[in-house]
C-alpha cells in the first residue's frame, strides 16, 4: 500500500468497535464498544474466557467475520486509514501484507491438500506477485528464520506430516513472509503442550524484537500474558473491563473479574493447598446479558448500582482503566470482598 501522508497517533487503533451477530434469539453484541491501540514493537495481550469476544474483536479488525456477523459501528484505523470503510479489494491488499494473523489450531488452519511451502509462500505470490519458485525459496528462508529444521524437506511436506509445534512455526512463518507491521496471534499456543508452548512464545518474542512488529496476543492464560505483553486488556461479555500495563494490572487489579481470575488460578509457585477462590456462577449468555454490569451476578464486590447501571471504562489508577463502579468510587480490591450475609 502507499504510505499515507496523514499523520496518525497509533499504528493500529480500534475505536468504539461494535460487532453483532443476528441469531434466532435476537441480535448478539459479540463486541460492544471496544477500543484499543498498538504500536510497533509492542505486544498487547487480550485476555478473556471463551465467549468474551476477544477473537471476534480481532476478526473484526481483519474483517474476517463469518456472515451474518458484521461490524455495526466503530473504526479500525491502520496508519490512520479506516479499515472498516475499505472496499473488499482494498482490504485484501492490507490483509496478509500489512496485518497478518496466526490462529489457534495449526492443524485445521492449514489447507490439508497443499504443501506447506506452497502455502507459506502464497502471501508473496498474492501481494508481491512472486513467481511460485521464488516464493517457495522465500518460504524456505522463512522456515529457517522460525527455526524449522530441514526447511527444504519440510517445505514440500503436507501439513499433516508435521508435528503441532512445527506447524505453528510454519504458521508464523507464513504470517511473516510479507514482513507485516501488525501480527495478530489468536491463542497461538492453546493447542500445544507446555514445552512446545514455551518454544513458540520464545519465537514470538524474538520475532517482535527482530521485525519490530506490533503484536496482539490473544489468550486465556494469564501466565502467558504476564511473560509476553507490555500492555493488556481483559474482556468480559464483549466488553473491555480492565486495561493497563501488565505489571500494574497483575499487581493491582482494578476490576473484580481480573481480581477473581488471578485468585482462582492454582499457581505453580504456591505451596498452598487451601481451596481456591472460585468465581461463582457461569459466564453470561450473550443473548441474555444481565442488567447493569455484566459481571455483577458473579461479583463478590457488587453493589446496588452494579445491578442497575452499566459502568464505562474509565481511569481508576494512573495508566490503568476499569469498567467498575466499585473501583471507580475509589475502593481498593486488595482488601477483599465484603462479607455476605
Amino acid at each position, binding site marked *: 500500500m502507499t504510505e499515507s501522508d496523514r499523520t496518525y497517533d497509533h499504528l493500529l487503533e480500534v475505536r468504539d468497535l461494535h460487532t453483532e451477530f443476528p441469531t434466532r434469539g435476537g441480535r448478539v453484541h459479540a463486541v460492544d464498544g471496544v477500543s484499543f491501540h498498538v504500536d510497533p514493537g509492542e505486544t498487547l495481550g487480550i485476555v478473556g474466557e471463551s465467549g468474551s469476544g476477544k477473537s471476534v474483536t480481532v476478526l473484526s479488525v481483519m474483517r474476517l467475520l463469518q456472515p451474518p456477523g458484521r461490524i455495526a459501528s466503530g473504526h479500525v484505523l491502520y496508519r490512520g486509514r479506516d479499515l472498516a470503510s475499505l472496499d473488499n479489494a482494498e482490504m485484501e491488499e492490507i490483509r496478509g501484507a500489512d496485518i497478518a494473523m496466526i490462529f489457534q489450531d495449526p492443524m485445521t488452519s492449514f489447507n490439508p491438500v497443499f504443501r506447506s511451502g506452497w502455502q507459506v509462500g502464497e502471501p508473496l505470490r498474492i501481494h508481491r506477485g512472486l513467481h511460485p519458485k521464488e516464493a517457495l525459496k522465500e518460504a524456505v528462508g522463512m522456515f529457517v528464520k522460525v527455526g524449522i529444521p530441514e526447511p527444504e524437506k519440510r517445505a514440500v511436506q503436507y501439513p499433516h506430516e508435521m508435528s503441532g509445534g512445527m506447524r505453528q512455526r510454519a504458521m508464523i512463518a507464513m504470517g511473516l513472509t510479507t514482513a507485516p507491521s501488525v501480527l495478530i496471534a489468536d491463542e497461538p499456543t492453546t493447542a500445544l503442550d507446555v514445552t512446545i508452548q514455551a518454544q513458540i512464545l520464545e519465537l514470538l518474542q524474538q520475532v517482535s524484537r527482530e521485525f519490530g512488529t506490533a503484536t496482539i496476543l490473544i489468550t486465556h492464560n494469564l501466565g502467558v500474558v504476564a511473560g509476553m505483553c507490555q500492555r493488556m486488556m481483559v474482556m468480559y461479555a464483549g466488553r473491555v473491563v480492565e486495561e493497563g500495563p501488565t505489571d500494574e494490572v497483575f499487581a493491582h487489579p482494578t476490576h473484580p473479574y481480573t481480581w477473581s481470575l488471578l485468585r482462582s488460578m492454582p499457581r505453580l509457585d504456591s505451596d498452598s493447598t487451601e481451596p481456591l477462590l*472460585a468465581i*461463582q*456462577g*457461569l459466564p*453470561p*449468555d450473550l443473548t*441474555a446479558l*444481565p442488567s447493569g454490569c455484566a459481571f455483577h451476578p*458473579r461479583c463478590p464486590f457488587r453493589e446496588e448500582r452494579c445491578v442497575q447501571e452499566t459502568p464505562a471504562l474509565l481511569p481508576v489508577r494512573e495508566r490503568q482503566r476499569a469498567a467498575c463502579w466499585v473501583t471507580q468510587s475509589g475502593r481498593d480490591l486488595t482488601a477483599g470482598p465484603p462479607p455476605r450475609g
Partner: protein
Amino acid sequence: MIESNELAAPRAAPLEPAGGRAGRGFWQHSWEELRSNRLGIASAVLLALLIVVALTAPFFSQFVTHFGTTQQDLNNPFSAPSRTHWLGTDELGRDTVTRLAYGARISLGVGFLTVAISLTIGAMVGLFAGFYGGVLDDVLMRIVDVVLALPPVFLFILMSILFRPNAITLSVIIASLGWASLARLVRSEVLSLRSREFIVATRSLGARNGRLIFRHVLPNSLQLMIVAASLGLAQVVLIEAALDFLGLGIQPPTPSWGNMLSNAQEYFVHSVWLVIFPGLMIFLTVLAANLLGNALRDAFDPRLRHL
C-alpha cells in the same frame, strides 16, 4: 445445596429457574426444529394424506369414487377426466382415481414394509458387527460385501420368478438387498459411537454389553436410522415402480403406480392422463419422502449431512 457460591446464579445461567419439569429432551428439540421447517412439515402432511388414502382405499372406492379397482366398463374405455371419472378411465374403462388409491397401498405398503425389514436386519447386523468387531464383524461384513456386489438386476429378476410378486414378497425381495447398505451405515455409526467417551464411561461403571448396545448405542443411532428410513422409503418407492415398469413387480390386475404406467405407455397417444397421474403420484411420494428425510436430518443433526 452444600456450597451456595458454587451454584449457578439464576440470572446469569442460560437456564430457566430450576423447577421440577423435565428438560427439553433431544426428541423435543428435534421436533421443534422440524416444526419450523415448512417444507418438511408439508412433506409429512402429504405422506400422511397418502397413507390415509392407502389405508382407506376400499372405503374410498366405495363411498367416494364409487368404483371398484377391477370394475370394467368396456363401453367406456379411455374416457377423459370427467365428473364421474375424475381422472378418466383406462383401456378397460376402469376408474383411474380408484386405481391410484389402491396403487398407493402398494407403493407405500411396499415402501414401509421394505424399510422396516431392511432396517431391522441392517440395524441388527450393523449394531453387532460394529459393537463386537473381530471375527463377527469380519464375517458379517463379508456377507454385506457379497450382497452389495450382487447385480441387483439379476436378483430382482430371479427372485420375482421364485416368489410370485405381491406387496409382501416384493418387499422381501427389495429388502433382501437393501439391508446391506443400512448395515454398513449403522456399523460405521456404531464404530464411532463405540469409541465415544460416554460408552467408555458406562463401561467403567460395570455395564454389560447388552446394556451398552440397547441403552446407549441404539438410542444414539436412532436418529441416523430414522433419516435413513425416510430417505430409504423414497428409494424403495422408486425401485418398486421401476420393477413394476419392467414387469418384475406387482402384476395386473392389481393396480400399482408402476404397472399402471407401464400399461399406460401403450395408450397415451390418445389418453395422456393415464401416464401423467401415476407418474405424478410416484414423483410426489418420492419427493415428500426425500424432503421429509432431509428435514429430519437437519432437525436431528447437521452432522448427518452426508447421508
